[in-house]
């Protein structure tokens, strides 16, 4: 399949994407370099002791001084998902609905390429953006092995895949909502609300009993919220994340086929 539409979209976003990658790389490097100074600070674990709800809200549960706890609390359960979602949800809302609103979508829609192919190419561009950030961050975290951060590389690779799929899934949600409604604002609003709810459910599930059953409905739980760095990304998680993505893609294709373009 050709990738001309995806290439144009990536070219349009390359500056923003590069800025996010550089920023995330610098942040991740600072976190891993700081670890030796904090690994012996046992008082840090007091923050999450007894199931602190406030700490859970910021994505911190369990030990903060263990390698996996340090990386989860500072990168993988909050900051990296936030940055990836900013990129993927922003792109998802703009690549169909946004481009239709500003009129540029017709440049591609009038060419001999099916609407299904247009959506699939945009899904490809979305995936590239999420993977790029996840892999760049993973590279920085691997540097952390020189700074006392020990963890199985396969678990880090699984967690990186999980966080990339998390971004892709919410980006696809934005594409789907945008394809159905034709409204960038609606796509952003609906997806941001779903992502925020999903984050809260996954973060608070370990400390609030009545929320615990709902964690299975949270994509954060399946991607980054279930100690994936310590235990690895399960096949079930991969299955859920890919299934949700596939369902969103089908919805986006169906919606875009019905959408009246400007």
């Amino acid at each position, binding site marked *: 399949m050709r990738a001309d539409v995806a290439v144009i979209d990536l070219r*349009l976003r390359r500056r923003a994407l590069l800025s996010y990658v550089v920023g995330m790389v610098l942040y991740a490097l600072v976190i891993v370099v700081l670890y030796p100074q904090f690994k012996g600070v046992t008082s840090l674990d007091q923050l999450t002791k007894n199931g602190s709800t406030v700490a859970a809200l910021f994505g911190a549960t369990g030990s903060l001084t263990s390698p996996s706890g340090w990386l989860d609390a500072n990168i993988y359960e909050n900051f990296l998902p936030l940055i990836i979602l900013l990129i993927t949800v922003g792109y998802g809302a703009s690549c169909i609905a946004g481009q239709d609103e500003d009129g540029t979508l017709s440049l591609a829609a009038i060419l*001999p390429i099916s609407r299904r192919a247009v959506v699939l190419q945009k899904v490809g561009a979305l995936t590239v953006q999420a993977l790029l950030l996840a892999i760049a961050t993973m590279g920085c975290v691997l540097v952390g092995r020189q700074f006392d951060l020990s963890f199985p590389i396969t678990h880090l690779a699984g967690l990186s895949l999980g966080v990339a799929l998390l971004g892709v899934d919410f980006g696809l949600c934005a594409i789907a909502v945008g394809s159905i409604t034709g409204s960038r604002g609606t796509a952003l609003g609906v997806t941001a609300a779903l992502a925020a709810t999903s984050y809260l459910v996954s973060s608070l599930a370990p400390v609030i009993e009545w929320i615990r059953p709902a964690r299975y409905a949270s994509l954060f739980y399946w991607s980054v919220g279930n100690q994936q760095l310590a235990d690895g990304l399960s096949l079930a998680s991969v299955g859920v994340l890919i299934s949700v993505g596939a369902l969103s893609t089908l919805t986006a294709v169906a919606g875009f086929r019905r959408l009246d*373009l400007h």
Partner: protein
Amino acid sequence: MTVVVSAEKLSKTFGSHRGVEGLEFTVAEGEIFGFLGPNGSGKSTTIRLLTGLSHPTSGTAKVFGLDPIVDAVEIHRRVGYLPGELALHPRLTGQRHVDFAAKVRDMQDRTFLRELVERFQVDLERPTRTLSKGNRQKIGILLAVMHRPELVILDEPTSGLDPLMQDEFERLMRELVSSGTTVFLSSHELDEVQRVATRVAIIKDGHLVVTDTVEALRRRAPRTIEFSFPRTVDPKHFASIQGVHVVASNGKRITLALRGAVAPVLRVAADLDPLDVVARPADLDELFLTYYRDQSAEEHDDAR
């Protein structure tokens, strides 16, 4: 006659808003079909239905006998389209736009493209946000015709072009047609359409009010007669004559649109001792305005 474009009872509504209703027309191979109407009359909506960008509420449109929605890929391969409000990616150069379209269209031979770039002096090197409207429009023209499509659909194509480029564009349209291309030309510029089109459809408030050849329309079009008098004259003297419409009156000067014999007008005018009379041949401008006036009058009468 091979029909390239056809519409049958084609309608599109947007919620409670009217788009177009019950459109019926055909466009034959190798003709320039003028699609005339003022802003908001439904021209762009019709074009979006023909190009498959928008879905009809009812009725059917066919392009090359194909359905614009179901067979969009095949139709788009054979069609070039210039939208009325061309939107380009502001940060990309014209060259990027052209390369993108050429790749998707799998264009191997770019000789004609290079000819067009030179002929229209298109600036492809700068980001499109730095270009004037006219220069962006030239890129839109390239994108619409560079692959030598069998059908070109143009929505207000000369918008923003200077007079020299407008002339060049007219020549290009004639050349395309002489090589077998069909042109669907939507515009509110009556002069432009009547200069190049072989047939014309006039749309108002989403309804077609007339479809015919330019020559037939011209024959039916009213002539314009302008009288100058030495004193103030009541235009009612002329308004009561059958086939006459008073277009303008400032007391001593009266302009009439006339359909039918001129003798009754001259008899009335002679009694009023005119100083001068100027008669102009019929043109589509006046016909176009006449259709609007007639409809407005009918609506006014209906309301009463």
